[in-house]
């Protein structure tokens, strides 16, 4: 009796999470050291956004990290590499990660999340004026500028606000209806 009650309560608590659209959600970062070391120049990317082979390569060339110096002490570098690899796109069970891996050719080792084919495709309809020409965004690399809940691992459409342009969902719908008017 007691057991079934616990079960029911647990189910009730978890139901909203099970039902929620976890297709566009990844496991958030809980590692404080990672946040400190890899979250000071940009938001701390979730490990499940890149495969192990990409993290491995990226972590061995931190002296020239996209033109910046992001060097770490050897032991910190090792600890963080282990962290990234153990939760990478091919180690994680995040659905978004599985989808991204399915689209990635086996011989490709992208060093950028924005070069993952799935994400490239998802973003290809956003005009440059909202991204590279938008001084508040600068580059697609800064996920959290538009995905307001990126830190918590959510990339859901309802949480997208493009600085200077507002909510994406409404905009997309508006443009859709304008097209219908033509």
């Amino acid at each position, binding site marked *: 009796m007691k057991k079934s009650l616990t079960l029911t309560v647990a189910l009730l608590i978890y139901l909203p999470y099970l039902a929620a659209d976890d297709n566009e959600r990844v496991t958030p970062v809980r590692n404080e050291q990672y946040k400190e070391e890899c979250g000071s*120049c940009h938001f701390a990317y979730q490990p499940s956004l890149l495969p192990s082979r990409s993290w491995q390569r990226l972590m061995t060339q931190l002296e020239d990290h996209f033109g910046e110096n*992001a060097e770490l*002490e050897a032991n910190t570098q090792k600890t963080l590499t282990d962290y990234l690899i153990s939760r990478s796109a091919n180690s994680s069970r995040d659905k978004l990660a599985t989808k991204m891996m399915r689209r990635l050719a086996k011989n490709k080792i992208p060093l950028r999340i924005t070069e993952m084919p799935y994400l490239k495709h998802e973003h290809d309809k956003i005009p440059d004026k909202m991204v590279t020409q938008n001084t508040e965004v*600068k580059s697609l690399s800064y996920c959290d500028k538009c995905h307001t809940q990126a830190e918590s691992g959510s990339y859901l459409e309802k949480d997208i606000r493009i600085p200077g342009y507002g909510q994406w969902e409404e905009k997309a719908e508006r443009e859709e209806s304008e097209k219908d008017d033509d």
Partner: protein
Amino acid sequence: MNKYLMICGMMLLPLAYSHSVLATAAVDELLAEYRSAGATEFSVEAGNTLWLQEFQDAQSGKMRQCATCHTDNLRNPGKHARTGKPIEPLATSVNPKSLTDIKKIRKWLKRNCKWTIGRECTPQEKGNVLTFIQTQ
């Protein structure tokens, strides 16, 4: 009664000072290190000058200075010149966490000197600039 007040006051004293004391502890250790590496007297003024000095980046041709990311008022939050990510103020007077972690200071001085000046800072320069930041 007077004695009681005095004792209370004495107990509060370390609380009021604790953060600036912490800040100096990390910097003091670094300054001692720089001295044993050959640096002499550290100067707030020389630190301030280095802070504002502009250096031309060999690759982009653009001028760079410490203030490019931290602004010229250290009590204000900064912004990473390339990524735009906000940076907490460096001044210990408004950000008690600043200059408290030796490893963090070492790491960022190495990176930021390379980025700004194109080479690592000398022990003398590092000591001057830390002494300057501490007065802000």
